[in-house]
Each structure stands twice: as structure tokens, then as C-alpha cells.
């Protein structure tokens, strides 16, 4: 009987406010240097801005770049990094059967046009006529293509030639979890040997801030680590980021001599109603389902994003497990759909180095850990919905 199929992470693309790539993130997260936060540009909302990227390196045609807005550029760029890291960039034979699942939000609007129109609507004689004229006259036709959620995947197909299949999941943090979960299920189930999965998020957008501010989800004022926001009512500090993983069946990877960063062993996800106690119970249940973790060689990478009471409940659930915890959103911010793919990427980086990131902030839940790192549970608690946990393991 053949070995059970296994999902290896053989490629990682990651960009955020901390920089580009594996080493930049590992260095930033082990040095204890803290986050890059801009508290003034979108005041009162602190935002983690994207590190400078040389887009030409992964999106060589300027025409392609022009057809995208920043979130798509970040994603397409990072997908290229992931393919390069897996050693399959430009390999049309493999790319033609690489399956893609992208977690995406909504694309950029033209905020200056929106404000001009809103201003005009206040005094327009005929609002209907005014709005029709302005939209017909002022909207850039190609902006629609930057807005459609599935066009990040579309751009990755065009720029990198990933065409095995293309699916886009929507729905905030949970969509990132389910993208990874479905890719893993298909890989283990044998309906694909290699998957590109991930997402991209541009935090430096007023229209995105508006969406989350309507629901009261944003942190106001000075930045604080996610565990230290409860007294202020909690909130998201949005962070620009993009993360893509190449998930590859073990035998497929071995056959082409690809090296794994880590193994993705399981993803558990669900939806609670978010009544009091639901998040704690849900996260505990998902972690239990992953099986016991050895405190000498395991840690929890928390997907806590700082909204209350979700983050306090998650903290309480994690505190009882006797494992060191690292909440990466304190350092890279809230990247919504991209959060979970980014956290799985960070876990894989830590496991490939065999060492956990430094504690950050003053909360004792981020206990020091010096042991060799073999397993990481990666949690996701969406800012309003969705709870999940994944198991990422070192490969011998």
C-alpha cells in the first residue's frame, strides 16, 4: 500500500510591513524589534504599511501592472515569490496542472472620484441625473477589473501561467482558512498534487477603512499589541500583506527534488454564533482536534487580531494549554483574508528554522521558548466570524 498522501509546503511568498520574503520576516520576528506602524497617515487609525517592493521582479510587464490596483499587485507579486521559492516558476508543465485557491476581499475604489461625487450630490438639482453622468464620465473602465475579487486569481493566471484551476473564496478571515483547508482536502483526497493558495490585502485604503469602521471594528489612536487592546475596547490595526503557499504532495515533491519548509497536517474550521464563550469553546475544540502537542517542542501561533471580545476569549482558551503563544497580528497587523495564509507561512518559516519567534509585548501569554520547534498550531479567530486551527509540522 502506498504511503498516505502528505501536504508539504514547498513554496512560500510573503510580503508585509516587515519586509519581503522569509529571511526578512524571520529576522524581524526574532529580533524583538517591533512593528512598522504609521499612526499619522490615516489617523486616527494606525496602519501597517507595505514595505517597498520592486514589482518589476515578479510582474515584468508594465502593462500588467497598470491593469491592477495595489492589492492585486501585492498578490500577483507574492504568488510569483511563492512559485519561485518552490522552484516551479515558469515551469509550464507543472503550472498547467497547478490548482489555485485565492482568498480575496473587494478591490480598490477610486476614492477621489467617490468624494467628488458625494460632494456634488449634496447640491445636485437632479441627483439621479448627476450620479449617472458622473459615473459614466468619471469611472475608469479598467478599474472594474481591479475591483472584481476573482481578478487577483485572474492576474496570477495571466502573469504566472497558473491555469490548472482558479477559485476565489470571499468572506474575511474565514475565506483564507477555507482556501487552505479545501486545498489540503483536495491534495490529500488525490484530486491534485500541487496547489497555490493565499491572499493579498491592501490596508492603505480609505475605502477599506470605511468598510471596517462602519462596523466599529477598527482600533483608534495609538498602536498597541493585540493582547493589550481590550481595555480600549479592542480593534483592528489593518496591515498590508500578501501571502501565498505552494502545497505539494510529498511524492510529487520528492520526485522533483523539492525541499519542504514544513508539513501542513490538518486544518479545522468552523463558525460559531459569537455568543459569550463561543470563541473560547470553538478554539479549544479545534485545538483538541489537532491532537496533543509536546510542550517541549511545540508552540501556538495565534491569529488573534485584537477585536473584542474575540481576542480576550481566545487568550483565555490558549492560556490553559501550557504552550508558548505568539500573536503575529501585533507585528504585521490585520490582513483579513490574508491573515491565515500569512500565519501558516510564518509557522512554516519558524519550523524550517527550528526556532520560535521572540515574545512581543508585555502579556505573559507570550512566554519565552528556547526549545527546538517541531510543531505549531496556527489559530484563526476572524474579527467577526469564523474560528479555526491548523497543525503545521517540521519535516525530518
Amino acid at each position, binding site marked *: 500500500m502506498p504511503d498516505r498522501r502528505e501536504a508539504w509546503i514547498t513554496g512560500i511568498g510573503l510580503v508585509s510591513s516587515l519586509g519581503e520574503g522569509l529571511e526578512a520576516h524571520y529576522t524581524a520576528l526574532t529580533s524583538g524589534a517591533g512593528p512598522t506602524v504609521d499612526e499619522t497617515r490615516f489617523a486616527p487609525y494606525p496602519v501597517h504599511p507595505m514595505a517597498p517592493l520592486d514589482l518589476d521582479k515578479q510582474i515584468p510587464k508594465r502593462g500588467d501592472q497598470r491593469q491592477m490596483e495595489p492589492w492585486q499587485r501585492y498578490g500577483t507579486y507574492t504568488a510569483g515569490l511563492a512559485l519561485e521559492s518552490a522552484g516551479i516558476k515558469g515551469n509550464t508543465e507543472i503550472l498547467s496542472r497547478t490548482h489555485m485557491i485565492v482568498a480575496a476581499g473587494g478591490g480598490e475604489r477610486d476614492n477621489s472620484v467617490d468624494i467628488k461625487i458625494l460632494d456634488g450630490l449634496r447640491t445636485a438639482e437632479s441627483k439621479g441625473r448627476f450620479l449617472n453622468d458622473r459615473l459614466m464620465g468619471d469611472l475608469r473602465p479598467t478599474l472594474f477589473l481591479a475591483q472584481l475579487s476573482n481578478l487577483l486569481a485572474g492576474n496570477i493566471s495571466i502573469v504566472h501561467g497558473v491555469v490548472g484551476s482558479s477559485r476565489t473564496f470571499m468572506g474575511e478571515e474565514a475565506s483564507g482558512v477555507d482556501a487552505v483547508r479545501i486545498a489540503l482536502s483536495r491534495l490529500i483526497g488525490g484530486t491534485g498534487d500541487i496547489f497555490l493558495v493565499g491572499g493579498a490585502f491592501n490596508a492603505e485604503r480609505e475605502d477599506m477603512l470605511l468598510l471596517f469602521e462602519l462596523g*466599529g471594528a477598527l482600533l483608534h489612536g495609538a498602536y498597541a499589541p493585540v493582547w493589550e487592546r481590550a481595555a480600549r475596547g479592542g480593534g483592528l490595526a489593518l496591515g498590508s500583506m500578501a501571502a501565498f503557499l505552494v502545497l505539494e504532495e510529498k511524492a510529487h515533491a520528492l520526485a522533483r527534488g523539492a525541499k519542504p519548509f514544513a508539513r501542513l497536517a490538518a486544518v479545522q474550521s468552523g463558525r460559531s454564533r459569537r455568543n459569550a464563550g463561543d470563541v473560547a469553546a470553538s478554539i479549544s475544540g479545534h485545538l483538541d482536534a489537532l491532537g496533543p502537542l509536546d510542550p517541549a517542542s511545540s508552540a501556538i501561533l495565534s491569529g488573534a487580531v485584537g477585536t473584542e471580545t474575540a481576542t480576550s476569549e481566545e487568550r483565555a482558551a490558549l492560556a490553559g494549554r501550557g504552550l508558548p503563544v505568539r500573536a503575529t497580528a501585533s507585528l504585521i497587523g490585520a490582513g483579513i483574508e490574508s491573515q491565515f495564509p500569512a500565519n501558516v507561512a510564518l509557522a512554516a518559516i519558524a519550523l524550517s528554522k527550528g526556532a520560535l519567534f521572540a515574545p512581543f509585548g508585555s502579556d505573559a501569554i507570550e512566554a519565552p521558548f528556547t526549545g527546538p520547534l517541531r510543531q505549531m498550531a496556527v489559530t484563526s479567530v476572524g474579527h467577526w466570524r469564523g474560528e479555526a486551527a491548523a497543525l503545521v509540522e517540521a519535516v525530518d
Partner: protein
Amino acid sequence: MAGERRDRQGRPVVAITGMGVVTSLGIGKADNWAAIMAGKSGLSTIKRFPLDGLKTTVAGTIDFIPAEPFCAAELTERLAHVAVEEALAEAAIGRKGYFPGPLFLAMPPVETEWEQREAVLAAGPTAEPVTYATLLAGAATGKFRAWGERFLFGSVADHVAERFGTQGSPITLSTACASGASAIQLGVEAIRRGETRAALCVGTDATVNLESLVRFSLLSALSTANEPPEEASKPFSKNRDGFVMAEGAAALVLEDYDAAIARGARILGIVEGVGELADSFHRTRASPDGKPVIGCIRNALADASVGPEAIDHVNAHGTGTPENDKMEYNSMNAVFGDLLKALPVSSNKSMVGHTLSAAGAIETVFSILTMVNSRIPPTINYKVPDPAIPLDVVPNVARDAEVARVLSNSFGFGGQNVCLVLAREPA
């Protein structure tokens, strides 16, 4: 297990045991099917917003289901509820508030609309000039918390999951105009993997709002043949000039065949095969050589373990844009060859318009009804045949025919292609 049924590749067989549909033709399968058999159009002149200065004024809106606040997100959700209710009543599965499987819901990206932006701005400070900070300050008043949830992409599926009690994390997906078919595909895969014995698959779309219309219009994708509106959608005709935006939803209960039989469910049809293949040619245009679509159709046939000769009818994507219909014909010609001459191919979009994210699901419902009723829907408004597209489009009048197997095509912006092979039960 005795009587265990497996498909030709040894996988669990995926049955459809419940279906619900709502389009501009009406609510429910009975009304929709009667209208389709009569060759009726659901398209009309838009009444929802002023039409001054617009090139396109026709759409297939659903104005008979209330939504408050009126916006795409809300109506998209209302349509999903209507379709799911009908599908669950027919399947008679689970119990009130409990469905024994996951939800896969296809919907369009939604966002705050002008009415909401105006209200939020008005709640902000009265500083001049108006800036985005004014708008954000209006949002920060906390008066619009309900809208915050309403415009999150996950909220439609979340509310459907809550009301009907689906299991696990509900998945919201978008593969543009192939979304409805992708939702079915995800359900098929979950059942084949043995993760679940049932799945609720939904496609829903209610985005006929001013800005969406303008955006499609600026891409020159829409028909401008506004009068008479019921004749605007002309798939495969020589004078076709674009698609007509429309609203609708469909829901399907998919089940493991054995589990469905064991509980005494009526099998409406079988999803035998699913094919997909992405196109890397262009953001809005399909590869002119049709290779990705040809490959997609072949993938679906291979997944169903049947050859092209086994297909009795094609429920076409058939949007009525000059480019799609030509490309779809060429691709079918490559796959079916001489068989295509005798293969009835019709486009439901001639009557219900292009329901975008819902189309793949709605057309699956109509494909199953075609087989159950042994009657093929017409392609209406077919007055000027296109010599470059020599197809039997079932012109203008429905046709009696025994149909055992249907190919349903869905293609979308962003290089999205999904094809389904659907079969009658017993095949």
C-alpha cells in the same frame, strides 16, 4: 454495503434531491419552467434608478421580493433564502434550522452603495471641503453598525448558514460568471471525498444597481438594444450585441446517492462530471483559439467518464456577446465535431438574462428540469441566424425530446471556466 453505487471511477455518486430557483420570471420552479416553456422573457426596462444618460436601460431585475435597506447585498441574500427554502422543502432533508452538510454559496462582490455613502457622509461633521475623513467620521459615529456587517462579503453566507443550520464554516466564492457552477463543484468534491453526505450549493446575484450597470457598460459588455426590452438578449443571433444583466438565485441539495436512497429521497438528477480550466489569455476575453474552454469541456466529460456522443443537449453559457457565443461555438465544434450538427444547444439567458454569479446554479436547475420534463428550453429572440454559428439553438420554441445527459457551460471574466455534466435518473 449492499447496493452501494459508485460511478465509473469508483467514487460516490452525487445526486440532486432538491432544487429552488428565483429569476425575473418569478419565484419557484413551477412558475419559471412554465414561463421558459412558453418562451417568455423576464427582461424589462429598469425601474429601480433613473436612466438618464445611460446607454443600457434593460435588465432582468427582481422587483417582487422586498429588501431593506435596498442594496445588492441585501437582495442577494433575500434571493438566496427564497431559493434555499424551496430546495430544502423538496429535498425534505434535515429539519427546520438544521441541514446535515456544508454550505457553498456563490455571490458577487458587494459593497456600500451611493445611498449608504450619502447617509454616512451626512452623519459626519459639516466641514468644507468634503474629504474622505468626513466620511470616515460619519462612520465613526457608530450609527451604522448594521451596515458594517451587511457589506462584509461573508455576511450573506453567514446569515444563510444561521437560518438553515448548515454545518461547518460556510464558504462564499466568486469565480465571476462561473460562480454558480463552482459552488456545485465544491459540493460534488466534498461528497466524493466522503467528508459529507449532503451539501447545500447556492448561486445568488442581485447586482443590477447603477454602478454595476455602468461598469459593465463601460467595458462595452452590455446590449444596448433597449427597445423592446424583452428582445434585448439574443444569444447566437447575428445581431447579438451584448449580454443583459439580470438577477436571480438557485439552490441545490446535493447528496451521496446511497444516503439519499436510504432515506427514501426522490432523485431528481445526477451530477456526473465537473471540469474546470483557467485561461491565462486576458482579463475579460477568452483565448481566441478556445483551448481553455475546449479543455474544460473535455475535463468535464472525462470526469463523467463519457464521450461527446453521450451528450444529448447543451445548456450553453450563451451570453449574447459577440465574442462569447463565437468562442463557445468554436470550442463545442472542436469537441463535438459532426455530432454538433444534431445537438440541440440553447441559452436560458435569452429569457432570464445573465444572472452572473447565479447563472451556473440556475442553469443547472433548468438542465435538470429539461431532463425530468423531456422538453428542451428554447433560445428566444433568434430571428437572424449567424452563418458563422451554425447551431441548432432550439430557436424560439421549446421542443419535446428525450434528454438523458446535459452539458452545462459557465465561463467568466478572469479566465474562469467550469462545465458540468448532468444526467437523468435513471440515466
